[in-house]
């Protein structure tokens, strides 16, 4: 009782403290310093209509590379934690015909929509991470509906590695051409898609990087699902 009371009182104090701090922030007033620069120059500098994407992939590409690395480490960590010599799916209850048939019909649409999200990253909200998560959802559906289903591990590991390398490769080409890592050579030097802003073939290397990220996130999350759903079996 005393513990709970103390916890509530300290939470109230912390809440009051944060509220006091936020009270000084002028909401609704124009206080954009860096952000105004992004909004003014995003189209001519990156070719993307979606300013968030341009900032995440282009202006601050290192952050995204870091996030992809974090996800990769998470996936590897789950794999390492749950590593056993022989692991299998031990689920016994097959889904009813409504569940399995519904899954069969839905999976292609979910995958197509995931691809739609990451290919339109520079035009619409979304991008590589939501698109990849959507694709992983399709595999989660298959895992949930079919007791025997397993992702094709060999292919998945190869795709995961290849797209990870190609992200760094895109950055290194930028380093060679433009002088710094993740330099957007497609837009800055080639000017590819300059008269095309707002349509699909524009945005410099953003669609390429988002395709890479989408595939990487999709395969990685599917791998995490696969690891977590399997159980150890005795020989």
């Amino acid at each position, binding site marked *: 009782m005393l513990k709970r009371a103390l916890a509530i009182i300290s939470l109230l104090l912390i809440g009051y403290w944060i509220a006091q701090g936020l009270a000084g922030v002028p909401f609704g007033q124009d206080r954009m310093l860096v952000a105004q620069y992004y909004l003014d120059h995003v189209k001519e500098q990156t070719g993307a209509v979606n300013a968030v994407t341009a900032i995440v992939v282009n202006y601050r590409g290192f952050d995204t590379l870091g996030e992809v690395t974090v996800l990769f480490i998470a996936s590897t960590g789950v794999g390492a934690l749950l590593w056993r010599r022989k692991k299998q799916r031990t689920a016994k209850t097959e889904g009813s015909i409504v569940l399995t048939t519904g899954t069969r019909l839905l999976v292609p649409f979910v995958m197509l929509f995931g691809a*739609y999200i990451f290919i339109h990253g520079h035009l619409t909200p979304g991008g590589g991470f939501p698109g990849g998560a959507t694709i992983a959802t399709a595999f989660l559906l298959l895992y949930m509906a079919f007791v025997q289903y397993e992702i094709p591990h060999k292919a998945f590991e190869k795709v995961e590695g290849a797209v990870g390398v190609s992200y760094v490769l895109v950055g290194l080409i930028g380093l060679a051409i433009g002088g710094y890592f993740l330099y957007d050579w497609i837009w800055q030097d080639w000017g590819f898609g300059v008269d095309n802003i707002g349509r699909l073939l524009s945005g410099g290397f953003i669609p390429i990087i988002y395709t890479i990220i989408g595939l990487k996130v999709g395969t990685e999350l599917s791998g995490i699902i696969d690891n977590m759903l399997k159980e150890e079996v005795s020989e």
Partner: protein
Amino acid sequence: MGEASKISRYLYTVIVLFLIWLAITASLDVQELGFGLLLSLIVAAFTYEIFTTNGLANLHPRRIAYMIAYIPYFLWAMIKANIDVAYRVLHPKRPIRPGIVKCRTVLSSDVGKLALANSITLTPGTITLDVDDDEYFIHWIWVPDEALVESEEEHVKASSEGITVPFEKFLKVIFG
């Protein structure tokens, strides 16, 4: 019904996915169309084996005509059933007589069974609990007198008349 050839199944999946792409992009820009076709081809290559067993036979004009006719028919059944349930909820005596009944279907394809199960669940008053081969177990909000009989054959016949038969005449043609 036997399985269609691989090419026919693949093409059918590509066509359906491309139509969905047209719907979600809502644009006839040549770049969108090109990428849509490309992605449909890729996604279909991975998924056509689980997506369809009939292939292009699904695009038979008779099936499409029945499918278009089924939409207003189903919506009307849904509106009627919703009003019926609203009446039962608002009525002071709340006239419900719930029970689980068994129905039998003439549909043979898995997709047809899925469509029937969903149609039954989406018309309020009935909920599909389980599907076992050609038998449906359905929770009914008002089990009529005809279904409250001792003989199982008569019970199944009466409940099928009330629940599955009205949908089946369409779904039999659409999905087989």
